[in-house]
């Protein structure tokens, strides 16, 4: 059982790797499920999730957002993060795919 490491690795389609806190990564339902030991995916053993449809630039922004979401989970009047407009469309799709705290509307 390797499922209790503090950090997990997210790999983008073009091969960039991001090591981020498990708690942050699991804000995405998709990532959470693929790491869930009850399902026994290889992702769980390796603590590594390959997201082949998401490229490095977008995944970097996703990771930033996950940390941002975790940081502000308990505070009020959260400042909006700075998102480059040219990435918004791709982020939108990626967020939909990753689900959880990223998707659904306010």
């Amino acid at each position, binding site marked *: 059982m390797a499922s209790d490491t503090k950090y997990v690795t997210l790999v983008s389609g073009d091969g960039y790797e991001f090591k981020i806190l498990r708690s942050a990564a699991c804000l995405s339902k998709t990532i959470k499920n693929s790491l869930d030991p009850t399902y026994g995916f290889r992702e769980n053993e390796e603590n590594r999730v390959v997201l082949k449809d998401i490229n490095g630039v977008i995944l970097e922004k996703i990771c930033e957002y996950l940390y941002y979401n975790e940081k502000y*989970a308990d505070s009020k009047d*959260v400042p909006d993060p700075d*998102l480059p407009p040219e990435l*918004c*469309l791709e*982020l*939108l799709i990626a967020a*939909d795919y990753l689900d959880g705290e990223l998707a659904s509307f*306010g």
Partner: protein
Amino acid sequence: MAAERPRKRKRDQDEAIAKIKKGKEAKKKSAKKKKKHGSDDSDSDFDIMDLYKKAKKLPGQLENCELCEKRFTVTAYSKAGPNGGLLCTPCGKAMTKEAKATEKASKPVQRKGRRKLESNRLDGFTSRGARTLQQLCIEKLAKHAEDIDEFGEMPEAIMNRLSEIFSKKRAMNPTTFKLFLQPDREEVSIQESAYLETEDFDQIFAIVPGIKKLALRNCCQFKDVNVDYMIEKAKKLSDIQLLGANLVSDDKWTELFIARGPDLKSFKVEWLDAAFTDEVVQALVTFCPNLERLKLERCKHLGVEAIDAIARLENLQHLTLRFCKEVPRERLVNLIGNVGPNLETLCLENFVESDCEPTDVILEAIHTSCTNLSKFRFTENNVCTDEGYVNLFTDWSNPPLRYIDVNSTRDVDNANPDGPEEYTIGVGSAGFDAIMKHSGSNLQCINISSCRHIDHETFANIFDGEKQYPSLQEINLSFCPVVDTQVIAGIFRSCPKIQKVITFGCFEVKEVVVPRGVVLIGAPKAQDAIEQFGDVVMDFQKELQAEMAKAGGRIVPVRG
């Protein structure tokens, strides 16, 4: 050198004070002269650094500009530079311009941010925690609407959300609107079409011929020619919603119904006052017998005959009516008797009668005919009595409702604000009790604003903290004058899922502790803020949290 400074500074300070004193005398002596100097601030300024500088030049003398070092003649209007020197005219101008620009840039941003914040709060948006990435992206996109070439493939839900936000931000114009037209889509909904022209509407059917669902709000330029084109192109259309389509004539409406015929499943129109008469509704009923959803609101010409026509729609499941003309109650009773048994949604708004004799025949009809309702709205009625509501909700074979709105059911008479003595008009104590007994177990949303005959005891009994309303998420108690802090606290305890409590005009609601994840809107005396977001985790919430933690999730902040 650093050690030397304090001493020097002290000396400088003494000098400065002496100078200020002197300056004040001088000021008194020559107030007129002072005015001429204008910008010269040496005598009022405490800045010690000034003393290191050479004496300032007077108007008429020559000086080197502090920034560009050019020599220029000092005038009364010469501006002071950043380091205390004087600036030549071009530099001075550039500087004031800059100062103004920064001032402008900094001020509105602050104000806008705050305004947006408050607006979001009233929308119930930002309760706590970060907003979702999708929400953030969509808002950013709306800001840069003009720069987008294409959306690419998007899930339908995202498309609709984009459309909503674009509309809200007034970014829906003939250019951006085309982004929402994709050949493989089945639904086009534009919440705010006021900027769109007649030709633009044709684009919808040209680009999306497979369209099944069309929703246009504020489509002022939607004309007969568009209807013609729609009839010709959109052969799969089954769901039509148009708000404010006043340029479509009666004949065209009828033609549309003939063309879509039995395929039309849902038809919603609002705010029509130029055309759309009873005959059009009759045509609708004749040619589109499979209609399941019908909404006719604020259509000026509609009256009794339309009601009678609708009574013939046997497949109707959702019915919403708000008429401008008065309709005799027996015709409404007839309508309910005919279509009632299949209805899941029944909304009858603003059916006011000028004849104020109390009568509950409509409620009786609903009681006997409707057994499948999940959403019930019956507002602004002035003849049905409290007893009528009790009878409706007592031993009703209809399963518990999900949504109830009985706001503003009361007698309106300025001379007699308490209403008639012998009976209560509108939902009163007994009626509210009956509603909660019948539907409390399943109720998600209830609106009883302006039901002013519900007494405090009833509220306290219903929301006593013991009885539980497991599904209730939203309650509107505005203008129920007896509602006080105790009632609100009771609601928090009795409704574990409550998210939003609206209390405009409830002056008895004072220092109330709002639990976490709940928003209390409108309490006029609670605090300065018109809205409060709960911060306190109450005991009864702790259990819930523990359970959720066990389930493996973290407590997700409530989003409105």
